[in-house]
């Protein structure tokens, strides 16, 4: 176990350690993060990172392979552009968590704020609480599971990402519609909830996705351009 106390150590020292191949298989503890930015950004190897406290902007950004847990809250841009591995937050996450992320698993045990999973490109996101407005905007692929409610304009201009929502959405965005829960979706959702360690009945969720009406140019809309 290696420890970084961010009261004294620069965030850069921690991140450089995570960029080096000798971090493979290590367990790293981060104490006194004090809301600092970019904590554990750019990790590349299978490292277990436990952050004890609250973090600021862009925690765990661009993560590949590492398993990163924040024992606290996270500021804006958590796990932005994650490629693989996993990021878990015990508290709440601020806006645009999981933005543009290509892969891996992001779990927020509390609430996530606005724009959760904006432009997600393959990541799986499981939120134990509720999420804010404009979540999954232009989401391209991956799965977003919300165990609470969603704010306004859920899934606006969504492509092929799948949304599972247990509560209610304040409103659905353009081209986002409710779709039937088939056996394959129940199975997929059960797996996601199991992986996230969150207990809910898959049958309590509704599925949302793209109506695919924005995919092609409509001549009737020519005046809008």
């Amino acid at each position: 176990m290696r420890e970084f106390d961010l009261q004294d150590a620069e965030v850069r020292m921690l991140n450089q350690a995570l960029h080096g191949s000798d971090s493979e298989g290590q367990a790293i503890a981060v104490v006194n993060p004090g809301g600092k930015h970019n904590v554990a950004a750019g990790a590349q190897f299978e490292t277990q990172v436990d952050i004890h406290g609250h973090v600021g902007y862009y925690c765990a950004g661009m993560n590949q392979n590492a398993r990163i847990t924040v024992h606290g809250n996270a500021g804006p841009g958590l796990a932005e552009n994650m490629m693989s591995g996993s990021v878990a937050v015990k508290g709440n996450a601020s806006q645009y968590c999981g933005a543009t992320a290509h892969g891996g698993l992001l779990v927020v045990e509390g609430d996530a704020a606005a724009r959760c999973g904006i432009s997600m490109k393959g990541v799986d996101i499981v939120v134990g609480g509720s999420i804010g407005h404009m979540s999954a905007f232009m989401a391209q692929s991956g799965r977003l599971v919300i165990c609470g409610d969603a704010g306004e304009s859920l899934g606006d201009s969504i492509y092929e990402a799948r949304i599972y929502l247990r509560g209610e959405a304040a409103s659905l965005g353009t081209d986002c519609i409710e779709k039937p829960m088939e056996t394959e979706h129940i199975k997929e959702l059960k797996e996601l909830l199991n992986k996230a360690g969150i207990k809910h009945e898959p049958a309590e969720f509704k599925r949302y996705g793209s109506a695919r009406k924005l995919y092609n140019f409509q001549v009737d809309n020519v005046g809008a351009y």
Partner: protein
Amino acid sequence: MCGIVGLYLKNPALERNLGKMLADMLVQMTDRGPDSAGVAIYHDPVDAKSVKITLQGPDDVDWVAIESKLLEGLGQHVSVTPLANHAVVIAGASDTAQSDDIAGWIESNLDQVKITSLGSAIEIFKEKGLPDQVIKKFKIGDMHGTHALGHTRMATESAVTTEHSHPFSTGLDLCLVHNGSLSNHNQWRDKLRSEGIRFQTDNDSEVAAGYLTWRLSQGATINQALESAIKDLDGFYTFAVGTRDGFAVLRDPIACKPAVLAETDDWVAMSSEYRAIAQLPNSESARIWEPDPARIYSWEKN
């Protein structure tokens, strides 16, 4: 980009540390706003027959000369306490109309100085430069008080000068700090000017301050004024508003500008980022949350 901090004390035992607590928070917001910084601090309220005015002048301002001009022009003895290029003036004024007359006389007759605040408890100190320099210049760390707001500015909408710095005073004992940018401020400045609101700059945030002054002059409460601001002001904002007895926080409905609130038994704090709140005593056990879009949060002494 800008940084905002606000601190409201629930435990009077902490009042002597207010300046130090706020200064520690403000320094954390340096990289959100290295252009200029400012603080509004509420302390030592004057009696009902007096008004407290903060004046700001050039670095070589002669406060003795200003004091004798005030004595001559207002026909009464005033107390002038200089603090670098700012000074706190206490004058006799039995009502709001008399306070306005004094402010009007200063604006018309003392071209060297500008009024940064007017009221019974508020004082505003602001200046170009890094937050740490501004804090040291005005000895913010030594100040006591009940509550305070601070701002670090990275200008996007108007010039970097002391006059364009926040907080902007919004009438008696009221002030506003802003992170964001307003898009319909020119239209509202014209409208508010025709309603008799005075502006010192072309700054967008000053229009938000003037807007609240105007709504309050119509009899609205601070919460009602903020409620109508959601409809009337177009743009991005996290506002923190100081009142004589407390403070309020409001984010626009799109809420892309950050804000964090935290509360313990001893204090309520707001900031653009948690790292400012992390400086406060017992912050690790505080209840921490992100304010919802378009929802007004306010705290006041009963």
